[in-house]
């Protein structure tokens, strides 16, 4: 029998109510010892009971206790949840009482771990739960929930079924070469069959990019020569003095990160030190960092000075960002126009003194990422790197087939790619066993002690 674990499962001190969850074979017995009200060992499963948490004869808190008996619970073990009043002191006190009576404090993710190990949820779902625990915004929570409900799983299962149909057909052709019962899979009809699968996978990936945006937000890097006004733009966007703003160029030595929300999506603004050749070692560190940020950012906003002609450095920056998603903000329109720009890039103009152009900038970002179109209800997204990576692999398998059809590789060979795609998707929804999975488990769940 597993020991009984307990933990506070709501954020401490945030809500009006806190929930303490207890799971394990002794959960009901232990809670019953500190509960005044009905005898919890005799109540039906999945019922709620009013009463008090007691320390000896003293009432600690007035509570509602939910009793859920194995196996139809999240962990498949007996679970008791205590809904108490949300003060930090009271909540902690109740937890302490439980620990005194024989519970062990749960490790992070241990409820999920038990649910996974007891076969209650798949790995994908386990990952979703940990995403749920870590989620910050409402959209994130919803997305994590849709993972749990198996929405993604059923979508992936559908794609796998399509793959299996083709695989089975090819196998029949091989094993019964003289029978005309099955349609012969040729290069032509194989192409017809895998192209829709390719579309499905691409859609899943595209959705998952949206999923990534919901989960992690969009990293936006502001770049430009020193003193073109990057920090001022950042401050204006945030309405707060986060970056140090002076007129001396090179003031922002570190990348400064701040967050704002656009249409419910987190925008992580990164103000970079001006990128220029410098001898100053401290500043040089900042510059190197900026270059790195430039590489990892989802969106780069290049800030140019309306009051100066385009310099060589500006041109270099334009060259650097040409393969990244980017837009240009021409700042300081309150000053005389000396800038001549010949480009097809998206340009927003304005100045921070009059707070001009900033709304236009925000609107542009919303447009670029279709943030106004993100639907909260239909979230069949994958949103961690492992999942996305597996779909990418499956897509690569399908592309390989289309590619090798051109090379006239026999269909029964191409089937190898179909099987691999099938396996990759199997790994995604936990229907294929892979050794790395265990390594992953050991990493995430700190097993093997």
């Amino acid at each position: 029998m597993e020991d009984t674990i307990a933990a506070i499962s709501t954020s401490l001190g945030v809500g009006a109510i806190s929930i303490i969850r207890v799971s394990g074979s002794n959960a009901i017995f232990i809670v019953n010892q500190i509960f005044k009200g009905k005898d919890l060992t005799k109540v039906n499963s999945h019922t709620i009971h009013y009463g008090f948490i007691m320390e000896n004869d003293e009432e600690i808190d007035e509570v509602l206790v939910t009793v859920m008996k194995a196996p139809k619970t999240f962990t498949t073990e007996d679970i008791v949840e205590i809904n108490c009043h949300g003060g930090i002191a009271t909540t902690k006190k109740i937890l302490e009482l439980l620990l005194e009576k024989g519970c062990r404090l749960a490790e992070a993710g241990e409820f999920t771990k038990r649910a996974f190990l007891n076969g209650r949820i798949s790995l994908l779902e386990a990952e979703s739960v940990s995403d749920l625990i870590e989620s910050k915004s409402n959209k994130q929570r919803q997305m994590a929930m849709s993972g749990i409900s198996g929405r993604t799983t059923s979508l992936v299962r559908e794609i796998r079924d399509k793959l299996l149909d083709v695989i089975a057909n090819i196998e029949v052709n091989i094993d019964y070469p003289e029978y005309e019962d099955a349609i012969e899979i040729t290069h032509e009809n194989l192409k017809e069959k895998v192209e829709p699968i390719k579309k499905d996978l691409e859609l899943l990936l595209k959705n998952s990019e949206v999923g990534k945006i919901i989960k992690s937000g969009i990293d936006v890097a502001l770049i430009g020569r020193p003193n073109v006004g990057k920090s001022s733009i950042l401050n204006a966007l945030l309405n707060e003095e986060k970056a140090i703003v002076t007129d001396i160029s090179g003031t922002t030595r570190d990348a400064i990160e701040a967050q704002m929300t656009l249409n419910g999506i987190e925008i992580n603004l990164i103000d970079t030190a001006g990128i220029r050749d410098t001898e100053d070692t401290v500043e040089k560190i900042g510059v190197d960092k900026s270059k790195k940020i430039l590489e990892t950012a989802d969106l780069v906003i290049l800030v140019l000075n309306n009051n100066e002609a385009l310099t060589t450095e500006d041109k270099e920056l334009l060259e650097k960002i040409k393969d990244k998603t980017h837009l240009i903000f021409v700042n300081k329109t309150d000053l005389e126009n000396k800038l001549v720009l010949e480009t097809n890039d998206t340009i927003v103009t304005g100045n921070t003194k009059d707070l001009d152009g900033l709304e236009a900038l925000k609107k542009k970002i919303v447009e670029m990422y279709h943030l106004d179109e993100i639907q909260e209800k239909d979230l069949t997204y994958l949103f961690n790197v492992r999942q996305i990576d597996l779909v990418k692999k499956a897509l690569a398998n399908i592309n390989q087939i289309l590619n090798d059809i051109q090379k006239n590789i026999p269909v029964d060979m191409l089937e190898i790619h179909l099987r691999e795609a099938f396996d990759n998707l199997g790994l995604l929804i936990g229907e294929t066993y892979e050794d790395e999975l265990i390594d992953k488990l050991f990493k995430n769940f700190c097993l093997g002690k």
Partner: protein
Amino acid sequence: MKYEVIVVGGGHAGCEASHMSAFLGHKTLLITMNKKNIADMPCNPSIGGTAKGVIVRDIDALGGLMGKVADESHFQMKMLNSKKGPAVQSLRCQADKTTYPKNMLKRLEDTKNLTIQEGLVEDLIVEENKIKGIVLANGEKILCDALILTTGTYLKSNILRGAVSTEGGPHGEGRSNHLSDNLKRLGFTIQRLKTGTPPRIKADSIDFSKCSIEEGDQKYYTFSHDDQPKYKIEEQQKCYLIYTNQETHQIILDNLDKSSMYGGYVTGVGPRYCPSIEDKIVRFKDKERHQLFLEPESMYYDEWYLQGFSTSMPEDVQVRMVHSLKGLENAVITKYAYAIEYDAIDPLQLKLSLETKVIENLFTAGQINGTSGYEEAAGQGLMAGINAARKLENQEPFILKRNESYIGVLIDDLVTKGTKEPYRMLTSRAEYRLLLRHDNADLRLRGYAHELGTITNEMYQNYLNRVAKIKELNEFLKTTKLELTEEVKAKFQEQNFNLPPNKMNLQELLKRPEITFAFLDTLLAIPFSEDIKEVVEIAIKYEGYIKKTEKEIEKMLKLEEKQIPTDIDYSKVKNLASEARVKLEKIRPISIGQAARISGVNPADISILAIYLKKEYGKND
């Protein structure tokens, strides 16, 4: 009387098992009900087929007899799937039902250390869970150190035609009435399986003008690595193709309740992949017709086999069914189709060596293990023969992995997944089939065979010669550059191929999808035989695919290396699904890899098991 090894049953499994154990130097007895039925082919008159043909090649590479006997006993040869990729090509011959058994018997009689005796085995002598000998129906006892049971369909077999059920095996032979009960008493789980065979038709009653011809291939092939072709292409016999029609279907539907299967007279489970004609009609209602093949059984008698028309209808209905077929309107049925049900053991009670887990030194092979097919039986017989010999020599068993041979796939499937219907090998069962090809059987297996001592020096030499030739050809391709003369250019243009750069070496050139040896041969002389060119071309052309498969194999082998201790107590592994626990307890897989292949054991169970091993035994990496 005492022998080191006794083999019970002279079918395809028994022939290979007894030959191999004797060849390995052990005094061996082959006991059969009727010497005339040694290597009998009670069903289809062919050896090989998809996947099965590769099994025959593998048997030959390992020193077995089936390929060599088939080569000297057939009247038509065909390479199946020749238009598909190299991984799925497989040989099939129409074997003569008269000469094949004769030639096999001759080889067995010529085998040193091997005695053949007629008798019906009804009981086993077992002491302390170890086999000691057999008891014949006449009460005679024969002792042995190891026993291989290859009883085929003869355990409590019933022949069924409609409501008529007759006790006995194929050809009106007797059956073993008590052996399966005695096996049950000793702790074996017995299951009832069913298979069937179509009617045989008198040759001169067939109107062949109404049938379409199926010819043999116009190219020479042999199953054996050590033989030259023993037939003439132009002397091959024809087979014929005909179809069922609506009338046939109606007769079957009208009489369905009279068939043994649909009338409820059969308890055994039949194979899905080899359905009776009534199954096909019922299950595929929309199909307007089904293919049937007419194949001669022998050059020494005039019976034809009607492949695809297996049925358990009563005789009068069979006559009407056959007469509804085009070309068979006046056909005379010489043998009526029948279904046969028989006892088999549950292969989950076997080790990968084919030794039973229940009784030491007792091995089983062939249909008793739940398989179907001559080739599947022979492959197992060979392995049982090798492993019985090794057991007596206190050697580790010889186990073929899934990436080494179809025989490895077959046995692993049987002992890991079990079977509820007669198991037939299919290419789709072999996940690494790209490596399990017809052309490389010797390259995969002769090295092992040499180490095991299962082949002669001459056979080993044949293999070494081929390896040397392959190396030579590769060298030739690397060092030979193609000069783009006007003549060469013309050949490329003629085929609409892109011109290569001048002096490209032939190896690079062969990597191009359109360039084959067949084409290169028109440009310059490449003095190597077809079979050498084939192996080399496949390796060059499909290098990427082969590498990919090898990567998959690496992953698989990693899991195979994760051994599960033999003393593991599954009741202590918490949280296993109960189905998984039962299956693991029963099968007791030797590795995480094998455990993962058990049906009903899902990835979550494997994770839990892996975690348990890591926790309990620590050193599982």
